[in-house]
């Protein structure tokens, strides 16, 4: 709230539209009081906000925003940059399969043993429903 008011005042003051002194005069306040209001965050009363903005020829617009309607962030936590994710798991699983190619021989769903299926499930549900041949195709 304070930031919005202070920024608006700074913009208006830069344009030469208003000064702290004129605000003080319009509100019948001591200029030092206006300086204090605009210097640091404090517990503004709604009346004070209204008066301040009125003196600057503006008013506060209130809007309630649902958390779900806030735009989604477009950044990722730095610790997760480059961390393995599910796709990597699928690829490493496929590489694992490739290295055991001699055991499996035929890369068809029918040729898979129960343990292969268990490994798939352990790694990722997607892998459990993807055939070995498909996984191998994804290996670079």
């Amino acid at each position, binding site marked *: 709230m304070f930031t919005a008011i202070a920024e608006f005042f700074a913009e208006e003051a830069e344009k030469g539209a208003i000064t702290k002194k004129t605000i003080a005069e319009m509100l019948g306040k001591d200029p030092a009081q206006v300086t204090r209001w605009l210097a640091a965050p404090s517990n503004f009363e709604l009346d004070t906000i209204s008066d301040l903005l009125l003196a600057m020829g503006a008013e506060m617009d209130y809007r309630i925003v649902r958390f779900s309607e806030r735009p989604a962030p477009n950044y*990722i*936590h730095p*610790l*997760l940059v480059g*961390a*393995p994710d599910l796709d990597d798991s699928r690829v490493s699983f496929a590489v694992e399969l490739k290295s055991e190619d001699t055991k499996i021989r035929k890369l068809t769903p029918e040729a898979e043993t129960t343990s292969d299926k268990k490994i798939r*499930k352990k790694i990722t549900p997607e892998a*459990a429903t993807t055939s070995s041949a498909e996984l191998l195709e994804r290996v670079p």
Partner: protein
Amino acid sequence: MRLTYMSIHDVIRWRLQERRLFALRPLAAGTSARRCMLLAEDVWSLLNTTHEDQELEERIGFLQADLEVFAEGQPIHPKYLFLLYPVEDAVWEIRSVRPAPSIRVLGLFADKDVFVATNYALREELGGWQSREWKQVKRRARAVWSSLFHPYPPMVSTDVNQLVSGAINGKYFKERA
């Protein structure tokens, strides 16, 4: 001899590479992992094991969605995240309440916005706050932490704002006599 200082962030990256820790990435389109939710093997296995029981599968889906609330950076509420007694153990629980059965995911904070989910339990199996079962799951959480990060301690604080960004004001722990 040259000594290299390793931060807990380095250890986390190492554990992720070793696959002893797993990063939870939100699945919903347009979301990203704004906070870091790391899963130890127990929790990871629970989320990634296919169960024949369809109800259980759905329940685990809801659990994953609840954990993604943290990862997505959504506002955090004391009904969602709570510091367990004793405070100095620094074990927190994430409450996945609906649909029944209620599930508790225990974990500790490695850093601000970095939660390591160590283990989980069904609430109905835990009993009262002084029960042996509660002590066991809390001890297990500490043990998993030690196995992953020893000698690094978890972050200890009763001020949720030091641990999570975007926490709604509220009571995140209860003083016990």
